[in-house]
């Protein structure tokens, strides 16, 4: 994990600031940094989004492919996650350096997103037991400046919102053999309902208080953080503790409450933004990676 070295004096400075609800960059404890979202940035995916949060930048692409449903749930499609920690983000990732982090991140993403409460997996089924859509969600870390989980979750939600799955028709012949036919109209596609897709809020315990969207410096001052995935209604769908230190039950409760609050407030503007962008259609000026 990308870390920075922070001197003792600096730590004290950060800790004192947080204690007074005034962080180094001027934010309050429950404020996010500046966030930029753009969807449909990679044309050869079925859905994509790029999110920058402070200096953290992630790119998410969604590819839909036809696969076989899992035997236990024959009438549902499923997700596959892969997180690529590019050496662009930080030199530590070079070679196999980012592998561990990548696995850790993708394991969390399975827990958070791959269930029928976040996305209607039944809608991904083409024919029960035979064919379903498999959504390959590829996450690429472009730059690490703390709070990867939150940035990734927002980017995934945006990318799923943007995903257009080609519509298929199943034609059956008299022998019972099924043939999948693709629609030849590129506009004829299926959209996902992302309303219930949760966002992850990471709360960092710094001193006696906790902050959201911790920078790398703040992270260095923290011993443990709590990952909470929250839906737009404020339902917590998953929590996980990361970091070496311990958290007392009372602060866990506090942090969860704070996480719910922050998460709920995060969803509404995100959806609004995405819908606004969508409504622009082709007239939208694309920013891309160079803008």
């Amino acid at each position, binding site marked *: 994990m990308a870390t920075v070295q922070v001197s003792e004096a600096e730590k004290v400075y950060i800790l004192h600031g947080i204690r007074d609800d005034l962080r180094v960059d001027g934010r309050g404890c429950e404020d996010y940094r500046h966030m930029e979202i753009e969807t449909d940035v990679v044309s050869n995916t*079925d859905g994509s989004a790029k999110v920058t949060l402070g200096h953290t930048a992630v790119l998410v692409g969604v590819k*839909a492919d*036809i696969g076989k449903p899992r035997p236990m749930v024959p009438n549902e499609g499923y997700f596959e996650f892969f997180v690529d920690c590019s050496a662009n983000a930080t030199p530590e990732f070079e070679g196999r350096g980012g592998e561990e982090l990548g696995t850790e991140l993708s394991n969390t993403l399975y827990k958070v997103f791959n269930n029928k409460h976040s996305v209607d997996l039944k809608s991904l089924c083409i024919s029960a037991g035979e064919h379903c859509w498999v959504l390959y969600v590829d996450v690429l870390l472009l730059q690490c400046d703390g709070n990867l989980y939150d940035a990734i979750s927002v980017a995934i939600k945006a990318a799923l919102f943007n995903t257009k799955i080609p519509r298929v028709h199943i034609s059956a012949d008299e022998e019972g053999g099924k043939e999948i036919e693709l629609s030849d109209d590129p506009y004829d596609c299926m959209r996902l309902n992302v309303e219930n897709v949760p966002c992850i809020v990471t709360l960092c315990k710094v001193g006696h208080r906790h902050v959201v969207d911790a920078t790398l410096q703040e992270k260095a001052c923290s011993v443990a953080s709590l990952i909470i995935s929250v839906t737009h209604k404020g339902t917590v769908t998953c929590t996980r503790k990361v970091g070496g230190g311990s958290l007392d039950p009372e602060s866990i409760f506090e942090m969860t409450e704070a996480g719910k609050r922050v998460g709920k407030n995060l969803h509404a503007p995100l959806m609004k933004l995405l819908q606004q962008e969508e409504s622009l259609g082709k007239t939208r000026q694309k920013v891309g990676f160079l803008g």
Partner: protein
Amino acid sequence: MLKSKTFVRKTRSGGVMKIVREHYLRDDIWCGSEVCAECKQESTVLQRDACIESNLCSYPHYVIPDTNVVLHQIDVLEDPVIRNVIILQTVLQEVRHRSAPVYKRLKDMIHEKEKFFYAFTNEHHRETFIEREPGESANDRNDRAIRVAAKWYSQHLKTSESDADGLKVVLLTNDQGNKQKAEESGLLVYKCEEYIKSLIGNPELVDRLALSNDDKHDITSSKVLFPEHLPLSKIQAGIKSGAFVQGTFRASRDNYLEATVFVQGDGDESTEILIQGLQNLNRAVYQDVVAVQLLPQNQWVAPSSVVLQDEGAAKDDEEEKEEEDEEKALRISAAEAARKPTGKVVGIIKRNWRPFCGMLNISQIKESTRHLFTPADRRIPRIRIETRQASTLAGQRIMVAIDGWPKHSRYPNGHFVRSLGNAGEKDTEQEVLLLEHDVPHQDFSQAVLSFLPKMPWTITPEDMARREDLRNLTVCSVDPPGCTDIDDALHCRELDNGNLEVGVHIADVSHFIRPGNAMDREAASRGTTVYLCGKRIDMVPELLSSNLCSLRSNVERLAFSCIWEMNHKAEILKTRFTKSVINSKASLTYAEAQMRIDDTTKNDDITKSLRGLNKLAKILKRQRIEKGALTLSSLEVRFHIDSETHDPIDLQTKELMETNSMVEEFMLLANISVAQKIYDEFPDCAMLRKHPAPPPSNYDILLKAAKSKDVEIHTDTAKALADSLDVARVDGFPYFNTLLRILATRCMMQAVYFCSGMDSDFHHYGLASPIYTHFTSPIRRYADIIVHRLLAVAIAADSTYPDLMDKQKQSALANNLNYRHKMSQYAQRASVAFHTQLFFKSRGILNEEGFVLFVRKNAIIVLIPKFGLEGTVFFDAKDKAGPKLVFDEEGPTLNVEQHTFRIFDKVKVTISLDASNIQHQKIRMSLIDPVIPGVSVPAPEVEPQTKKPKLDR
């Protein structure tokens, strides 16, 4: 400006792939018009003065056809009258996608300078590119793209300064919706038919219009004659599940109600399914790829041996009754054993229609514009066409293309393409037979000729350094008279150690034809030189075939030599191959060479060399025959052609001399040596030739025939066959042996080229050689060029190239060569047949003796040895009651009234030319002897000949 095109596609493994292509729009695509002053184009295609006599558009205009117009009316567009046409990229791409042959023709037209066809890349033009809109189908989008481009053109030409010309663009479309939308946006738009009909100067163009869907209904009755074809998806599912089989449809030449479908099985297995009756044939045309459903076994039938030709009149109804009778006649209960798997055509997978040559049957109804067209190839059904120039076209050979075959029409509908000339004229007929046999016979293109060496050509010192100098050897060539493409020469000399050195020198064509260039591709596609009577269609340009590669005497030529050291028993002691330079000392004919050998007074080097060769050849031949090589016979005739009129004045069966077989022996030896060498070197990609042993059932007819004369023929091995043929003699019937050999030839399989990596059976049955290839005629066969290249690589005389080592590509090439070979043989035979007819036309009626070669249900086939001519004597006639016929398949014998015909019976017939059907002029034979009342004819007076030709040897 950058746009991207996105589409999804299913992959073979069942996945889904989204494909994104970048699409660049430009602002430097010019309009191509002479009028335009705005576009900064270097040269223009479209003329300023684009006038055509039309009563719809009296102003100068450019034509923009849409995709369907191009696809269906390509024959019209090809007419020289149609000029100044803008072909949009949208149209071009769609055409390419839908029909490769039409696309090629369209490309050719665009390249033709005289046609003023301009290809406008509207898809990359900034102002004419459009993106597909939601809810719009791909076709609608293309239609819109065409309209946008047409609109752009009309505005662009208007704004050009030279407005005075009043140039306009006219959009041609047959789609009602498209037309309406175009009219709404203010474009000039006509239906293709409307426009063509308005061309008052050229009324004949109307005939070439293909029938479009909406005017089909008035041409046929509404009665459904055929079952519906299944859609492709169902066919594919059926083939997958095994309910249907896929195969190539082969109509029968003799019986229009019968066909076979050739099904390629796994590996070498392949089966034939019989299809009988109009309903079961279900509108399949010769060479179509069809899906067939097998009938239950109790409905299986045997192939009938009745000869049945579709003589039906133009009207559908009249025929029906007649047809029912004919179909009934087919279903004479056959012996159980003779029944074959029978099926019916349920769908067409791929049509293989091409323009067909043939002639028009003028409709009996006066002023009718609908006529039936009878193709020259009897396997093709008659085609209904619409023309107003029937009276002009009567008696001409014409080409007609099929447009479609609706299920309620007895005949397919088609349209007139072009006229080839008057029937019966030599040039016309030659053209017809070349077209019908798919022989590429156009002049070589400029691209091909550009790869010819520059003249004057000399052997360079570099060539000399890399080649062995054999100019001092006494090399000579022996060929048929009049041969200009000499590809082989021979020498033989005694070595100091007492052994003989024999060399076969083959023209080094691969030196001139380098792999992959236009000349090479053209030669590969032609595959072989085609020899017709009095005409040769070269595989390589004449400069090579008759000059630089031809091993003429007293000039230095490049050769590829195969040199053996042999002892006097003709045993090979040493073999080597080398590229060389030779200087032939003499080009002899077979007769000249024979005379030199026989003339004991001659003792020059050439003659000595020839005698040596001849001696060895005799030994070689004996050895070969001992091993079981077959000597088969087929009658080949040669015409003596009048040098002025090019009419055949005499014909003679080819004579075989010792020298013929001398040359042949050494060619065989060279081919076998080379085959061994290239196979040793390249076991995976050697181009070889094999001759499979025929299946035992092929010999049935031969065995039956021999048995009728109490002669036993053994067919277990080639050797047994050869031996039993040698001893097969009947007293007082000297011609019997030759007849048997002719029959044996017909039992044989076709020898084929193949790639050694794709097959395991290399045996050459006829030559009794375990391995064989073609090396000795690279001027006239492409296979030999490949073999030359392989051999050159094997002896490190030349470099290789990827395609040479690719067994898949080699195999595909071999298939093409086999096809071209077969077709060229058919073309040659057809040419001989035509000249035979010309000959008999000039001779009038002749009485000749012949032998019965085959016995059929209603006819006997008679061979006239004197002319090498085969003809059919029919015993049943349509118009009158036939004699009583009893056919016995066991014999086979045919009992006509009191007389029984057997194979090999000697008969006397009159031969005359039957010109009643000018399309299929045929040699008519009628029986004179034996005399059967009501069947045979009295011997007619033979017109006195001024000079009796000395043909009987």
